[in-house]
């Protein structure tokens, strides 16, 4: 089964600073990869998903961007962080091709605080 690694676990950044969060996956190949944000006490909001290297789809307009330089690496970035970017960022992975029913599996997230 796949394992999803996210780092760092927590991050405190000043407003206006850049951001790079990394997610790597083990135990699978050619997965679909996802970035979510979770506000405190809320559900998960899908930010980006990727079905392959260099293929990124954005779900909501925002201050963030994503990249997938390798099959099992997914990066979330920002050039200038806003206060509203604070939250819990989760990376998820889904194996299988096509539209077969497979659950997404999640990493343990990065808690991002903007000061």
């Amino acid at each position, binding site marked *: 089964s796949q394992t*999803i690694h*996210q780092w760092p676990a927590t991050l405190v950044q000043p407003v206006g600073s850049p951001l790079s969060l990394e997610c790597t996956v083990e135990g699978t190949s050619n997965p*679909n990869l*996802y970035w979510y944000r979770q506000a405190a*006490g*809320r*559900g*998960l909001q*899908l930010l980006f*998903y990727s*079905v392959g290297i260099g293929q990124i789809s954005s*779900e909501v307009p925002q201050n963030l961007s994503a990249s997938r330089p390798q099959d099992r690496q997914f990066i979330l970035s920002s050039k200038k962080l806003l206060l509203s970017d604070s939250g819990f960022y*989760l990376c*998820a992975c*889904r194996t*299988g091709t096509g*539209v077969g*029913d*497979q*659950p*997404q*599996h*999640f*990493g*343990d*997230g990065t*808690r991002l605080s903007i000061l």
Partner: protein
Amino acid sequence: GESVGLHLPTLSVQEGDNSIINCAYSNSASDYFIWYKQESGKGPQFIIDIRSNMDKRQGQRVTVLLNKTVKHLSLQIAATQPGDSAVYFCAGTKRGSQGNLIFGKGTKLSVKP
């Protein structure tokens, strides 16, 4: 719009009792549903899933029921234990969506000893 929601934000049960967490969805095209458990500070953990061609699926101490007529699903946890305390999310997807999920806001389950 499309949504997947939960009926109650919190649920408190006595240790050893059964728990039932409910979820409603709005999109009749949703054909695959998943329940996740999220402990504090961690990512959601897959519990059980169900496809729309089924109305019941059982796992270890958990059962998911799907009622497509009223667009409702539930998660039943038998003999609830303190380790079951967490936030539970339902999520739904629809065919052709690349597996993208729509999550409800979550129900916080508290187990009293």
